[in-house]
């Protein structure tokens, strides 16, 4: 690592995320220090690593407590802290606390994070940069009359949403003008109860879109590049199951137009590091034909994401290392014209759940864990698991991600099927059978699906 870098970096995360951050640190010559809970203190991925015990297994008293995390980073003499994804990664308080205590937060500046974390300011910013929005109200609605006016102008059905909302709460649908008053007041009341903020805005309810997102990377000097899009339409309850790049249905014109606007938006907010803009690919104006669809901005995730390896495999870049470098003050090592996106990449998230029993969580000991063949680097597995690893009940159920690259989508599907069939996971139930069913299905292979149902898997 060149001069002006971090020597010790605190990893404020666990499992697969911590293992990925540490791998980048090893490459950059940085010493990672893991903050761990009691449940993870002896996990295989912490072997031979420096650790600080944060608290008991329960996340609220370990990974989710910013005081413990920053104090631990400080006493471990770390000059940087990486939040990974999940847990505190989008918490501006953690970013601000790091700044206060002389620790570089590996992520965007706290104010960029706070701006994109608020619903209508984020949408305003995106619109000004030229991104297309989901039609709806201009910001929060003052009263029922304003709600009626906005709903009639937009066209039914519409969705009322809490300004400070999340997790599906404070949301109500109105399909007719008579339902507006009820939907507006109910959404507002629920928003006060859940978030202490009754402000509500409105969007057109777009059913049956696809989820497409764009990966961006920025340095402190206003240089921004995109690393292509990812199609994450295969979901269950808003949890992504399969991601791929390129999107098999997005038109080249819509792709290029949105890439340019996404880069402008990233520049305008003074963003630094890796981020993702999430879009709904909406084909309601083209009779369900996604190849004529429009990408409509939903939100920006101000962090690296679970599915970032999809873009790494396609571009050959190491996004994690690049993110650490730019947050240490370095310039982006690459320019847009030198980023070549090659072939087709698919990622499957393997969870310790039983898909044939309502996705019942299946924690416990993984007695045998054997990885698939790497096929000359075209198959990659990101994991923290090894034979004998015990999946603790406290955290989410991801045990590994399998990522494959090939020249075409068909070949990538074939390669993924081969990889999943040759993997061995014994001791816990996994979602591998579900992935094989999806990959084999006509609906998936011919792109006849949207976010409402899993292709090739019964609802």
């Amino acid at each position, binding site marked *: 690592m060149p001069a002006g870098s971090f020597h010790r970096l605190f990893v404020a995360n666990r499992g697969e995320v911590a293992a990925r951050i540490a791998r980048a640190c090893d490459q950059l010559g940085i010493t990672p220090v893991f903050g761990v809970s009691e449940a993870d203190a002896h996990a295989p991925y912490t072997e031979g690593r420096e650790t*600080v015990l944060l608290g008991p297994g329960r996340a609220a008293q370990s990974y989710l407590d910013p005081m413990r995390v920053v104090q*631990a980073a400080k006493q471990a003499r770390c000059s940087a802290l990486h939040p990974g994804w999940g847990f505190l990664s989008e918490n501006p308080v953690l970013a601000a606390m790091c700044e206060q205590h002389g620790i570089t937060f590996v992520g965007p500046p706290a104010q960029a994070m706070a701006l994109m974390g608020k619903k209508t300011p984020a949408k305003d910013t995106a619109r000004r940069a030229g991104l297309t929005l989901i039609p709806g109200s201009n910001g929060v609605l003052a009263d029922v009359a304003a709600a009626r006016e906005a709903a009639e102008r937009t066209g039914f059905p519409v969705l009322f949403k809490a300004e400070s909302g999340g997790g599906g709460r404070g949301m109500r649908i109105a399909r007719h003008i008579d339902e507006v008053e009820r939907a507006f007041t109910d959404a507002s009341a629920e928003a006060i109860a859940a978030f202490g903020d009754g402000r509500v805005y409105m969007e057109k309810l777009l059913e049956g879109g696809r989820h497409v997102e764009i990966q961006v990377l920025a340095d402190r000097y206003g240089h921004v590049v995109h690393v292509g899009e990812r199609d994450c339409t295969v979901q269950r309850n808003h949890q992504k199951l399969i991601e791929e790049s390129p999107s098999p249905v997005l038109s080249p014109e819509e792709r290029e137009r949105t890439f340019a606007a996404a880069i402008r938006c990233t520049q305008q907010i003074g963003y630094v590091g890796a981020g993702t803009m999430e879009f709904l690919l909406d084909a309601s104006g083209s009779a369900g034909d996604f190849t004529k669809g429009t990408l409509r901005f939903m939100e920006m995730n101000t962090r690296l994401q679970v599915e970032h390896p999809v873009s790494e495999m396609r571009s050959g870049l190491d996004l994690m290392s690049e993110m650490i470098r730019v947050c240490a003050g370095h310039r982006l090592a690459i320019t847009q014209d030198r980023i070549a996106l090659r072939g087709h990449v698919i990622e499957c998230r393997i969870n310790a759940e039983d898909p044939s029993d309502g996705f019942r969580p299946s924690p416990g000991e993984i007695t045998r864990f054997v990885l698939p063949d790497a096929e000359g680097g075209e198959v990659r597995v990101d994991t923290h698991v090894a034979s004998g690893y015990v999946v603790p009940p406290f955290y989410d159920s991801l045990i590994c991600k399998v990522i494959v690259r090939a020249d075409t989508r068909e070949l990538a599907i074939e390669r993924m099927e081969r990889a999943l069939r040759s993997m061995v996971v014994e001791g816990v139930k996994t979602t591998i059978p579900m992935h094989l069913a999806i990959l084999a299905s006509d609906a998936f292979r011919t792109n006849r699906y949207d976010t409402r149902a899993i292709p090739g898997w019964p609802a």
Partner: protein
Amino acid sequence: MTTHENGRRFEQELAALVKEVDGLLVLRAPRPGFLRDAPSKGRALREGERCGELEVLGTLTKLVVPAGVAGLVVDENEHRKLARKPVGYGDVIAVIDPKAVAGGVSASAGASAAATSGGLVWKTPLGGRYYGRPSPNAEPFVKVGDVIKTGQTVALIEVMKTFNRASYGGAGLPPEARVERVLVKEGDDVNAGDAILALAPL
């Protein structure tokens, strides 16, 4: 709650964690921080007394001896003489011999073990967080004195952010039984196979 002591300003007070090892009581740090002023060998400690201070992000937390613990310090934190020793959650502050002072340990663990020894118990099939009611304001699934039947929901176990209903029944349990005691508290972390309900046959 801010308090002052010997010219030091403490933003809060926290009880040290305690764990019994071979008849000795080990006082441990409740969270990460810089430890100062840990008790030295030979000192007598009693419940509620100060047993060190923890600096967390520039503010001081007073560490006190938890309820029911008293005794003589027989071993100290290995770096006690450092001005500021970084400690993680669960690191040793001091080791106490409760028998070295009259009126040593009082009740600690063991209560639930006594209640379950030899008796009929229902054990959770899942490990996770235990809830005895369907939502925070609802009636509990079972109360002491209730008669429960095979298949009846008796608890929710939260595993990986998902709530799972756990129902009564299993090998060696009668089709109906009366609830004698609930052995865990709302929100406790439980392991698969832990005893949850103490039962009496009808």
